[in-house]
């Protein structure tokens, strides 16, 4: 098992863990109607930005260590995952729009639930695409 395959398994585990933690978390917030306000949003945004920048820097470093074949596989997986994310978000938002009706309101928790589901789906597809491509390579030769 190479480094990318290990990373894919770790990501897959991470996504499952996030769903296990985030799902009940959002449910509790909705049930208790917790209003975190603008400071809550800003703190979440800053934390996300810091984590994103650290991940980006680490990815740049690890990208240089990959060979051409691994780069190609990773790029394919990234394109698939981003396409699935965009497709999911567009389909889900327009489905809700048409089901609820253009003039009716929706609860505010629908938006983060859609976005987080899209992100989890994206990581899941990326990891699955990496594992499938490596498994296919092992099988072919």
């Amino acid at each position: 098992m190479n480094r990318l395959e290990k990373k894919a398994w770790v990501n897959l585990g991470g996504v499952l863990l996030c769903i296990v933690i985030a799902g009940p978390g959002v449910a509790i917030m909705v049930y208790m109607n917790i209003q975190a306000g603008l400071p809550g949003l800003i703190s979440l945004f800053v934390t996300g930005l810091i984590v994103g920048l650290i991940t980006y820097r680490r990815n740049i470093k690890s990208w240089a260590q990959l060979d051409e074949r691994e780069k190609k596989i990773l790029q394919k997986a990234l394109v698939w995952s981003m396409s699935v994310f965009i497709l999911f978000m567009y389909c889900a938002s327009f489905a809700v729009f048409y089901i609820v009706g253009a003039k009716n309101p929706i609860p505010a928790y629908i938006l983060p639930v859609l976005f987080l589901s899209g992100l989890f789906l994206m990581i899941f597809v990326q990891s699955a695409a990496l594992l499938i491509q490596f498994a296919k390579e092992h099988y072919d030769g």
Partner: protein
Amino acid sequence: MNRIQKTAWWMAIWISAGVILAAIAIAILFFIIGLPWSIARAGLGFLGIAGLGGLAPLIFRKDQGKVTCDERDRLINHRAAIAAFSTAYLVTGLACMLPFFVLGPNATISVCWLPSIFMAAGLTVFFVHSVAIIVQYGREVKGEES
């Protein structure tokens, strides 16, 4: 100026024109004429002008049999795409979280938020992609001169 730069300029100009005209129209209708927000937001219709940016591939056609982009162009395009999608994810994330955090999870919002968010994200992708391409080519030209 190569085809990629021309396309980027074309997109950036039309998207900027659409956004600026929509902002001016809403400002005039809402603040100067004093119409209610439900009517003043009709100014958003000017965003349709941004759609003219999509004509770029028809106007700046590929030269048949000529190499239109090299490794450097591909790298610039790749970096611009990363910048564009990262910004769009940020915009989408913020727009999705804003009502949840500010109004509260059980508050209700208009269903029009949903398609509006993803249209804004799409517009952001094209705009940031175009600007990133223009900036990167601009930097390279400066670098060659100095």
